[in-house]
């Protein structure tokens, strides 16, 4: 199977869907003539022309809203944020308009729109440029939220998202764009809302999405040396969340650690932790643990950043806590 980088997989998904469906177009800052701030849309202007690959000014509120209006009126916009940090400037368009107009109109209006771009911390970029938004967007009814961790998932899920016909938040990461993985040449789709077991194991269930999946994998390798076998579940979609897959795994392992790049209060881990205690209480041999960012904005200094960002060591510690091997 050919190896593709994460960024290339996203590009292929957009290209294939744009070839298939004339209504799909891409807009965002530097997506056209600059080939994308992170080169995700490289070559797309050449293929599809300036009518469908559109450079926008730094007007997130404006172009998010234009996306909403265009979606209502028959198009399928892919709105790229240079990073999701900047979506905040236009977030009313997403939360109040994209997410609610269909409901408020009693189902008269369709809202097929993708908001995509890099999410969460990407090194020492400071407090305003390092926020993980998957929990935030998942809070709102009317949005589906996807945060892929590997090229294969990214491509299949983005294609499904573009065909889904609903408002979708699709998250990526600057630090993953270069990550390679096998992606089949033939067309495939991945259903939204289905997680995947990324590593099998009997001792403990690790749930990790997005960039955290890779940190969880590192931790699992270290733990395997101590004879602890982790099962890693990548939910791939944050909302709807594939809780059944997690519960099934816990029935086998009886222990669970949630790894989440969000801050702790009201993050993905707190919601999933609630569902687990409600639906799998009798199967648990230890309280569920979580590894998250602290309740602290991103610091700049290298050493503080390393302390702040969840790492494999913290996951190993949490696994030792739930397996009582500390």
């Amino acid at each position, binding site marked *: 199977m050919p190896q593709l980088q994460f960024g290339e997989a996203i590009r292929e998904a957009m290209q294939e869907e744009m070839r298939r469906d004339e209504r799909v177009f891409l*807009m965002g*800052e*530097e997506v*056209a*003539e*600059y080939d994308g*701030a992170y080169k995700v849309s490289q070559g797309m202007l050449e293929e599809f*022309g*300036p*009518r469908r690959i*559109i*450079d*926008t*000014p*730094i*007007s997130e*509120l*404006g172009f998010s809203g234009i996306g909403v209006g265009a979606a209502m009126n028959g198009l399928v916009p892919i709105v790229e944020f240079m990073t999701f*940090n*900047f979506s*905040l*400037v236009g977030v009313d368009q997403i939360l109040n308009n994209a997410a609610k107009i269909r409901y408020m109109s009693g189902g008269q209006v369709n809202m097929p729109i993708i908001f995509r771009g890099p999410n969460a911390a990407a*090194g*020492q*970029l*400071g*407090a*305003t*440029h390092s926020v993980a938004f998957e929990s935030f967007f998942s809070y709102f009814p009317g949005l589906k939220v996807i945060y892929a961790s590997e090229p294969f998932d990214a491509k299949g899920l983005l294609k499904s998202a573009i065909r889904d016909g609903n408002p979708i938040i699709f998250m990526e990461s600057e630090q993953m764009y270069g990550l390679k993985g096998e992606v089949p040449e033939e067309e495939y789709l991945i259903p939204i809302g289905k997680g995947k077991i990324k590593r099998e194991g009997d001792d403990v269930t690790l749930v990790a999405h997005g960039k955290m999946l890779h940190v969880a994998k590192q931790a699992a390798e270290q733990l395997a040396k101590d004879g602890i076998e982790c099962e890693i579940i990548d939910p791939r979609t944050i909302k709807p969340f594939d809780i059944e897959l997690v519960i099934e795994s816990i029935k086998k392992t009886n222990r669970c650690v949630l790894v989440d790049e969000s*801050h*702790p*209060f009201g993050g993905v881990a707190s919601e999933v932790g609630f569902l687990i205690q409600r639906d799998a209480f009798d199967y648990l041999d230890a309280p569920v643990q979580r590894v998250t960012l*602290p*309740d*602290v*904005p991103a*610091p*700049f*200094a*290298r*050493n*503080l950043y390393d*302390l*702040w960002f969840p790492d494999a060591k913290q996951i190993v510690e949490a696994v030792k806590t739930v397996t009582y091997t500390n």
Partner: protein
Amino acid sequence: MTKKAEKSFTPTGFVYKSTTLPEATKKDHKKLGLTNDDVIALFREMFLQRRFEERAAQMYQKGKFGGFLHLYIGQEAISSATNFVLQDDDDIITAYRDHGFGLVRGISAKAGMAELFGKATGCSNGKGGSMHFFNADRHFWGGHGIVGAHIPVGAGLAFANKYLDNGRISISFFGDGAVDQGALHEAFNLAQLWKLPAIFVVENNGYSMGTAVERHTAAEIYKRALAYDMKYEIVNGMDLFSMIEKLQEVAKDVRDNSIPYFLEIRTYRYKGHSMSDPGNYRTKEELDEFKAIDPIERLKTYMLDKKVLKQDEIDSIMDEVNKEVLDAIDFAEESDFPAEEELYKHIFSGDELVIHDHK
């Protein structure tokens, strides 16, 4: 000029001239009320900003620090003129291209370089990095990373000054890209409605990242002021004396009459948007054209012509500045990283740590 591609939305194609400068003032420094010593100090300060950033770029390339690094090189006449004209307690706020304003507002080369290195001795204690230089004691309110978001904040600084009736004014700097944000319009309307003593300055350097001005904004930028009946000027930002001349008039008007003012300063950034930008969207000819009128080089020539300084005196100032910056690098390298408990400090005021689920 961009070519009009059929059925395109954003104008496409290469822009051959991203910004045009108004004529520079003919007045010499004496006419503008500057002493020879003023000119020398301004030269030194502009050169310090330049040298600081050239060295910072080298350190970045050597991997001495991470994160973003946006260089102000080419635009130094703006920060120096501002600091020279304004009172020391007037309030300054800017975007992430902030080293120059930090240095003119009392951040030492040492504290600046240490911030880039993320050290505890940095001007923001290593918490902010390149984009978030602050020196609140000297009324320099940062270094901000969300494009356009600090424009209303700048208006808010002016609101406090008017409220307190303290005679101070605020000045807010932002890029041409920020003009496209809704925040600018709300801030302009409020500032004019409430007659806030605020100068809003767009540093139009021709590009918003890789997008030339005429590809990202409709109509001339200064015309934003017209809709709000706000006074405006277009200023040559590559010329120190032009900057000083205009700012003197404008600051007086804003202070005396408590009104907002919009300045479109035409300037140019010599370096890429950030360190990862190769700058393929512009021509070498355009870059050379602006380098040929470099404000620092021209000030050197001016000082020689007007016999303000002799060549060897200029050289010795430059040597001194070079040394100051090299010392700053040593200082930054030798300084400690912040202590681990610093991670949890400065979230709220007060000594109590208010941190959810903190173990």
